[in-house]
């Protein structure tokens, strides 16, 4: 009974999108459209480009945050497997703190505690826009999880690999570089992709702190169009659909990779 949704690759997003549209239409059909007021559907169509523009910022933030998180997370992960306790323990602490704190709290911390303007040693002042701070705020929890992914992948390599490399006189660094890590990359890819998807789904939180991304724009659009309660369902559904259309394929791809790697015994 291995029944999964993956077989309905393209159909489900289409079905979901159709459902959203149906719901919007249903919501719209409930209202009595006065001649001089536009229907919710019309308002949505008018504001769609604006909302999509905001979504671009979500994507930018997610890609940047993922890049930062990967680089720092890998470094942190190496620190966690270091034989030296001086390096290992602080790394473990940092990983633990950022893995076990809510994303929202970390975001708040960065937004409030990092100044909006920094004076460089040369004397110049650099403005740090809100979305940049939000990007760092999103990168931190993913960094901690990438660190754990790396540590987990290294731990899962059988000790026999370390022993035979050691017996062939490889140094620890050489062993990591030529034997252990190449085998780890495969194992790390699906969880890494999973975290990217999750990260992207968290980026709308930036709207709480004033960043003009998709959610912020959706709320602004609803206000600009008159703040009518019948807008809420279609607009939010549309927003969810945008994310769904982007994330679901990534999700499917990740699962396919997982299955392939599990089958080949990686």
């Amino acid at each position, binding site marked *: 009974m291995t029944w999964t949704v993956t077989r309905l690759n393209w159909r489900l997003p289409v079905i979901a999108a159709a459902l959203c549209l149906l719901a919007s239409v249903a919501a719209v059909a409930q209202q009595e459209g006065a001649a001089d007021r536009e229907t919710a559907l019309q308002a949505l169509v008018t504001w769609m480009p604006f909302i999509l523009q905001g979504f671009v910022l979500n994507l930018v933030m997610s890609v940047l945050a993922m890049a930062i998180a990967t680089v720092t997370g890998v470094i942190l992960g190496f620190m966690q497997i270091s034989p030296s306790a001086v390096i290992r323990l602080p790394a473990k602490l940092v990983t633990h703190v950022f893995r076990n704190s809510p994303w929202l709290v970390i975001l708040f911390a960065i937004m409030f505690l990092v100044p909006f303007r920094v004076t460089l040693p040369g004397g110049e002042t650099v403005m740090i826009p809100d979305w940049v701070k939000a990007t760092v705020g999103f990168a931190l929890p993913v960094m901690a999880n990438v660190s754990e992914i790396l540590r987990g992948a290294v731990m899962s390599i059988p000790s026999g*690999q370390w022993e*035979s490399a050691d*017996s062939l*006189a*490889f140094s620890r660094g050489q062993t990591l570089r030529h034997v252990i890590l*190449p085998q780890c990359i495969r194992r790390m890819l699906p969880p890494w992709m999973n975290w990217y998807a999750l990260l992207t789904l968290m980026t709308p939180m930036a709207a709480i702190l004033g960043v003009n991304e998709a959610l912020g724009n959706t709320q602004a659009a609803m206000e600009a169009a008159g703040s009518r309660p019948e807008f809420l369902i279609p607009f939010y559904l549309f927003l969810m659909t945008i994310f769904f259309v982007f994330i679901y394929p990534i999700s499917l791809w990740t699962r396919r990779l997982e299955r392939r790697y599990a089958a080949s015994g990686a």
Partner: protein
Amino acid sequence: MTPSEGWTPDQPIVAIRDLHKSFGHVEVLKGIDIEVMKGEVICIIGPSGSGKSTLIRTINGLTPATTGSVTVEGQEVHDDNLDKLALRRKVGIVFQQYNLFPHRTVLQNVMMAPLLVLKENKREVEERARSLLAKVQLHDKEDAYPAELSGGQQQRVAIARSLCMRPDVMLFDEVTAALDPETVKEVLVTIKQLAADGMTCVLVTHEMGFAREVSDRVYFTDAGRIVESGPPAQLFEQPQDPRTREFLSKVL
């Protein structure tokens, strides 16, 4: 490889003196004395848990000794100032689980260490690797990945990989224990050839027939001590100690 100063081939190439090893409170080796001369083939037999694997791993430093001395070509293995690289070049080891690198081809597995660790010339290493693979009858599998080979084939690659470092001593830790019976023979044949070519070999093994055929001396260990040792004909035909007799009656 260059032996340490003062060592000459008339001295034992591997000398273990009063070796003790404890893991926490459990003492696994309780005073082992073994001497191996160059070119000799030594087999260590005994029941599980007698410390055989631990013993063989102290020779190349994988398992540090608690007290006692292990020297290879006169060089103390458990010396903090030891040049680990030099030791690992002298002593090769083959494990029960072969431990080939799954992400590299057979040829790459054999070539990796001399290239990266010894930084030797690539063409020389490749030539040597190919001839070693031919010696273990696997020259047609050069570009295969370990997962495509049988257990016996993988074990022979592991032997070739260790040999490519040109060691003076080869250690074998129960190398046929994880293999199907059909493939055990091909590995034993390889080891036999190696011994005939003059390599100093120390084997931990359950293959009594093989031990009798190939070794110069057999050591029987039980509960961390060497109970009895001697030439195979003597140990297997006329065991002196009752424990030896009991063990042999169970396995032969």
